[in-house]
């Protein structure tokens, strides 16, 4: 009998271990999740409303600290950049309150004069899409139930998600991606066969390597991003300054050559070969882009890419004005 009990316990452990490894992957993905807990228990979560009880309760704003509201706070987690600030650009009002504390609530669609305080669910990322709904019975199609209202649309007590049938529901599509290109026109000035030139944003060019322009990327995409560029080497009609190609090379004066290199700072993005060396490269054209940078994950920290552009010519490259358009784009992997 004792042996059987030991085996039984072992089977239980085995089952738990198997369960952990076999948890369906959809359970792992983060989404907005809110629950009623204590103020201290919310930890790194975001309190979006404080209540005097789990049912038949008054409400107060997250900014308040009335002691008897500490045991029933609406605590939200699961989304990076979550906030309760009504000053954020990207926000929804979850309820209007009749005061900062000891308050009744009304829907955000109401406009009663004595409901002067707003409780908000917001994100520091403008790309997040925050959706709020007042639904009866359940919060189907939403990520979570924030709390429930004793009655609608106004003068309502509040309670936890199961307290009343009037549910306050929320969903956040938490995706942020920002991309910036700081200059749209750069130039080499006069190219000569006896020197190497670097493009500058004043159009005059430089004889020493300088930044031509920079691009910046910031995202929370779980699988990171790639930065790409497409476009021909500078050309005049059918005459083109020869692109250096896919091998990082230090060009020498007197040869037709056009290339770029990039230097990354900040965040976790990195320049990829062949654009990460001391020399230059360019292997894109107008129909086929090339990858110049990637990030393995989107960590919400901006990476700046300083792009340097080089050209040199031989003595017999046809005289005239050469130009091209390079199109930079980023693709986030959510």
């Amino acid at each position, binding site marked *: 009998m004792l042996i059987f009990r030991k085996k039984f316990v072992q089977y239980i452990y085995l089952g738990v271990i198997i369960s952990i490894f076999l948890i369906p992957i959809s359970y792992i993905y983060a989404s907005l999740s809110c629950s009623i807990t204590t103020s201290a228990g919310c930890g790194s979560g975001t309190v979006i409303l404080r209540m005097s009880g789990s049912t038949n309760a008054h409400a107060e704003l997250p900014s308040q600290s009335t002691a008897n509201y500490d045991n029933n706070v609406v605590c939200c987690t699961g989304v990076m950049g979550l906030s309760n600030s009504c000053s954020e650009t990207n926000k929804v009002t979850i309820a209007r309150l009749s005061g900062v504390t000891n308050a009744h609530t009304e829907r955000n669609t109401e406009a009663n004069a004595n409901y002067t305080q707003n409780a908000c669910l917001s994100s520091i990322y403008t790309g997040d899409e925050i959706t709020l709904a007042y639904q009866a019975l359940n919060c189907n199609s939403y990520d979570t139930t924030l709390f429930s209202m004793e009655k609608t649309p106004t003068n309502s007590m509040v309670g936890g998600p199961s307290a009343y049938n009037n549910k306050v529901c929320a969903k956040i599509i938490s995706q942020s991606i920002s991309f910036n290109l700081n200059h*749209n026109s750069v130039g080499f000035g006069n190219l000569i066969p006896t020197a190497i030139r670097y493009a500058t944003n004043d159009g005059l*060019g430089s004889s020493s390597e300088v930044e031509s322009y920079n691009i910046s990327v910031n995202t929370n995409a779980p699988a990171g991003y790639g930065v790409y560029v497409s476009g021909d080497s*500078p050309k005049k009609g059918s005459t083109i300054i020869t692109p250096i190609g896919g091998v990082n090379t230090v060009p020498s004066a007197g040869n037709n050559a056009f290339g770029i290199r990039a230097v990354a700072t900040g965040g976790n993005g990195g320049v990829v070969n062949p654009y990460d060396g001391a020399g230059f490269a360019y292997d894109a054209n107008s129909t086929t882009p090339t990858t110049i940078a990637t990030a393995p994950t989107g960590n919400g920290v901006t990476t700046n890419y300083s792009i340097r552009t080089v050209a040199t010519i031989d003595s017999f490259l046809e005289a005239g004005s050469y*130009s091209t*358009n390079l199109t930079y*784009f980023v693709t986030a992997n959510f």
Partner: protein
Amino acid sequence: MRKIVSVFLVIGVVIFNFGFFLPGIVEASSLTTLSDKVSNLTTGALASHIIKFTTPTGIASGETVILTFDNGTSTVGVTASDVTVLDDATPITVNAGFPSGSNWGFVNTSSTVLTFTTGSGTVAASSVITITLNGTNKITNGSVGTTLLRITGTLGNDDTGEVSIPIISNGVVNISAEVLGSISFTMSSNAIYFGNLRTTSPCFAQNTNPGNVACPTTSESEALNFTVGTNAPNGYSVTIQGDTLRSGSNTIDALPVNTASSFGNEQFGLRINASGGFGIVTAPYSAAGYAYTGTSSTPAQIASFTGPSATTTYSVRYLANISDLTEAGSYATAHTYVATGNF
């Protein structure tokens, strides 16, 4: 007894992990690993899209995959011929309208919505679907800000997903450069000499003065050379201007057409060989014989090219023959060479 407990535990674990304990409830899943590679992020630009996502539950026959863009993005004009679909690496043919056989159907539902309906085939769970919109008709980007592409439909268990796309005011860098016009022109010698012309052999000029002796160079030899190179878009030409050999009013007859040397007859002419670059000798100076058509007032073109050219070296050979009747005297002339770039 232990076997019975073991069996029940294993079954319990399987039931728990695969959700069999709620057979009547099927929840929608999230599509995973979503991306949309947009070829140009400039607001209002026409751009191609490569949309990828992984379906966690697969896609059954007759289910829909709906792409919905916001932020003012326009799908107007996009047709089935602009679309390609891959199930992992396997191409799926796309029909306009309803699906046919294993082909997917495609409908441009509205200015922001594209709808696909799967055909008779099924897509396995965990497959990567790639939808490429890169035909003649492109999608027009919306406003500056974040465009959200929603993927919905009846696929899987009404699975859904979203992709954010940053739209900016201008994602293009214009790069410009100037290449100034240049032309190079050199001459190897500014004085060439025949010595004493004679009737018994041809005489070719040389770049050293032999003194008062019979012409020392009786076989063709370079008298001088000149070089030309330019990046002029329309190339260059070289002309020569000056008389034939003259002594006062007496002259040695110039050859008006390319003519072989014939000593004992009065002849003055030149021929030119070109090497390097793209330059070419102009007729009648390019053939095996000799000619001279310039005068003191009229230049004659001797070489040219129609575009940029690396340096061409032109080797010039001068011929002078006299007859018994050629007046005695010292004959000379000055030939002016001019290279002109055509920028």
